[in-house]
């Protein structure tokens, strides 16, 4: 298989079945995903995981899902570094989503309003020099693979200098 020919069921939305998500699988995928490029090898990420009983607090904030991965990033004081770090975290999440897809695990990447709310963040143990980059809702998709046809992709704007 090549990524070039990878025609995964790349859904970013849809509902999950009730099947629980093995923590070991999430950790395994994360250990591959952390090979994301990141400037200065700062590895500016950490993860807060919630599933089963512990996810109650998230229920008003997120859509229902068997598991949630809160992707926390360090917040540097230098705005350039902050942007680089955010970019690196996005590379990591993208790795994770590709890998999950290969294992038939669905991921919805969310960046809801509450992740910008310091009080809400703190309730999950996010520290002052940190922020939430995104919350990944994880589960096995409900229903038929390929049920959602992918929309027609717009042409990438590619100008010559």
């Amino acid at each position, binding site marked *: *298989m*090549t*990524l070039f020919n*990878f025609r*995964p069921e*790349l*859904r*970013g*939305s849809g509902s999950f079945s009730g099947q629980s998500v093995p923590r070991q699988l999430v*950790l395994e995928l994360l*250990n*591959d*995903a*952390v*090979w*994301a*490029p990141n400037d200065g090898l700062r*590895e500016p*990420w*950490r*993860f807060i*995981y*919630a599933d089963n*009983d*512990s*996810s*109650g*607090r998230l229920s008003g904030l997120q859509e229902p899902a068997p598991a949630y991965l*809160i992707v926390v990033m360090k917040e540097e004081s230098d705005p*350039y570094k902050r*942007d680089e770090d*955010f*970019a690196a975290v996005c*590379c990591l*999440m*993208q*790795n994770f989503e*590709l*890998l999950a897809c*290969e294992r038939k695990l669905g991921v919805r*990447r969310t*960046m809801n*309003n509450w992740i*910008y709310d310091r009080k809400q963040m703190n*309730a999950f*143990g996010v520290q002052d020099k940190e922020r939430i*980059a*995104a919350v990944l809702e994880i589960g096995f998709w409900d229903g038929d693979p390929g049920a959602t046809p*992918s*929309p*027609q*992709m*717009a*042409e*990438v*704007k*590619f*100008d*010559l*200098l």
Partner: protein
Amino acid sequence: MSLAELIRGRRTIRSFNQTPVARELVAELLQQAAGLYPSAEDAVWRCIYAGTPESRKRLADYMMEHMAGSRLGKWMPGKMIELFKKRFADIPGHVVVIAGTGPDRQASDRNYAAVCSILQNFQLLGWERQLGMLWDTEPMMQSEGFYERLGIRENERFVGVLHLGYYNKAPRGRSRTPAEKKWTVYAGSQSLK
């Protein structure tokens, strides 16, 4: 090569050989990269490509023309600037990536996240074709003068320049911290006051 092997094996390449890179390939891989992102149709972004000797030299000039007066440039002798420009212009291709900004932070973050994710796909797709890349955000590029030359508008932001080309030897990867060390399980609301 499995997906995990591809992701683990991709390296940032800082030294390229002179094998030419087809512009069509770069454009195609970018298109593929977008196709591997679920809501890519909503992403607002654009690329400017410098892949000819002339355009590469021009990009290097744009980058360095503001150096002379800058804090960084004061310490750089002219000879060094010329050497730097030559090295830059010798790299087979440069993709300048520009993302749109939204009306608020959340919208901007979402769009920037989409673009960065697509660029990771692009790096992986390139790696699969022996095409190495360096995602460059050096402070040298982060100047108003350079942005102006590139035509970056009010509602846009600079994401980086991806230098690319084929390579003779990939460096060894520097190991990553295991996810377990960066992982906590949320204990639930019981633990909160």
